[in-house]
């Protein structure tokens, strides 16, 4: 019996784990390390209509229990992604989450229309929260009206379910979640990175060429858990949770908070086998919690009748 499968709009996953967008390229590189068909799904790097070179280097820096990145949406553009990258994913038979980004609404719509038509793309993930390019969509990520408008327009042109990836750099995550739900989003992805900076004492300058970068890793997990907890109670669409997940226990924590599936980002860098190892370890944690199927625990920290004493 499979105790790990979860089902979200457009995503039938044999387990709730997918690599997070931007932390797994287009899959090819990690396919050299393990069989990607082990994964519940895969989220690919942000696609823009035209190719982007991204930011100058250094693009990454280390922080305590975290890292900063300012890649700047580097990608070969939708066309090349379809011709050169997506075909590599076909053999694995896993759902593909296509993360899309842009500057203007039209960019998003064009990328959404093209990518959603592709047979291998299961769902779109609207990246309205990239903190690393001036026009990387963050303008949509912190204003509920703009986010809702964009969601509506993309929904119109997309032939696949649309998830909206929320930025944590806001005062009220519920408001953002509700705005995009009302606009027709099929699901939420959260959280993207917090905006951070490190300054090098020798050069006295920010370590990253882009100055600021996105903070990810275990350092931000408490913020992610809190926001998933809040958003999941404010909306009825499912949430792909992420932010600092390193272990099977972290996955369960995100799901108890309200996530229906979980993405693993920075952990891949510390350990290329992070995703398959976490998947393999989930059963042990479920056993220790006396849970017969993982979907039982979704929102378990706030849903009534899901406290352990009542669950059996």
């Amino acid at each position, binding site marked *: 019996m499979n105790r790990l499968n979860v089902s979200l709009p457009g995503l039938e996953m044999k387990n709730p784990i997918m690599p997070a967008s*931007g*932390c*797994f*390229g287009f899959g*090819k*590189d*990690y396919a*050299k*390390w393990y069989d990607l068909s082990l994964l519940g799904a895969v989220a690919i*790097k942000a696609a823009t209509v035209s190719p982007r*070179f*991204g930011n100058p*280097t*250094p*693009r*990454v*820096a*280390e922080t*305590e*229990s*975290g*890292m900063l*990145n300012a*890649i700047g949406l*580097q990608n*070969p553009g939708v066309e090349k992604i379809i011709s050169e990258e997506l075909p590599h994913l076909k053999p694995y038979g896993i759902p593909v989450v296509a993360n899309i980004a842009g500057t203007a609404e039209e960019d998003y719509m064009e990328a959404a229309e093209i990518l959603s038509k592709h047979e291998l793309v299961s769902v779109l993930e609207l990246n309205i929260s990239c903190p690393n390019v001036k026009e990387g969509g963050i303008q949509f990520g912190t204003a509920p009206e703009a986010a809702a408008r964009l969601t509506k327009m993309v929904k119109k042109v997309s032939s696949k379910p649309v998830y909206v990836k929320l930025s944590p750099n806001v005062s009220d995550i519920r408001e953002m979640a509700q705005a995009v739900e009302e606009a027709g989003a099929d699901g939420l992805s959260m959280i993207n990175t917090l905006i951070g900076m490190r300054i090098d004492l020798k050069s006295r300058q920010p370590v990253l060429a882009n100055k600021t970068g996105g903070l990810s*890793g*275990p350092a931000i997990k408490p913020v992610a858990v809190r926001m998933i907890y809040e958003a999941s109670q404010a909306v009825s669409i499912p949430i792909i949770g992420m932010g600092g997940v*390193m272990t099977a226990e972290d996955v369960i924590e995100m799901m108890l908070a309200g996530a229906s599936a979980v993405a693993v980002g*920075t*952990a*891949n*860098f*510390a*350990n*290329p*086998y992070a995703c398959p190892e976490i998947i393999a370890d989930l059963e042990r944690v479920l056993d220790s919690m006396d849970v017969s199927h993982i979907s039982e625990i979704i929102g378990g920290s706030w849903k009534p009748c899901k406290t352990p004493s009542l669950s059996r």
Partner: protein
Amino acid sequence: MKRLNLNVVSQVMIADNIFELTVEGEGVESMKVPGQFVHVRTGEGFSSLLRRPISICDADTANNRLKMVYRAQGKGTAWLSTRSRGDKIDLLGPLGNGFNQDVVEAGGKALLVGGGIGVPPLYYLGRKLAQKGVAVSFALGFQSSKDAFYIEKFKEIGRVAVATADGTIGKKGFVTDVMDKFTAEQPVVFACGPSPMLRALNHKTEGLNAYYSFEERMGCGVGACFACVCEAATPSGYVKICSDGPVFKKEEVSI
């Protein structure tokens, strides 16, 4: 290209804050190409998430022994320098594309140019080339005598010229100041060192067949995150240091 869990055999400080770390275990047998690197996990738990790229300085593939030489500077390498016999080291490797030894034939000539902490991979390369019957010369640059290492070991392989910024050993100056006698022989050039050195080298290697190993801050180390890109004369307009490199033909990449 695997995750290895290797046993520390020894850790020796061979110059000021420069350590030679010898590790042993399954997986080293695949480390056949000089210029490739390993991606080393540092620290305990999740406090350090980014691995540290360290070049293969020498590998005894028959006996599964790997040597790394590194400078303890930041948090990760400082931690690494506290490991000792009995400890385990978690590393990924071998990663990247190293120096292509086929570009110089047996009987040919090669000049290996290294600066500071770019010197280590040249040891393995020099050893391999010499084995093959290539006449190898080394031009090595250090800040000062206290930072210099491995000079005697290099002398066992070929001719060696040393430059130090303060003149405490070898010639006072830069590696580019001591290499003319070697370049006159029209060797193939292999170099590893900081970008300013590689830039200066470009003038000296005009008309020569030259290969450089590059450094960049890395996220994944395996080609997935786009942290380590560099502008390049390729169709895509860029290369990734970790998976396309770290070694490139000098014309391929803009320094």
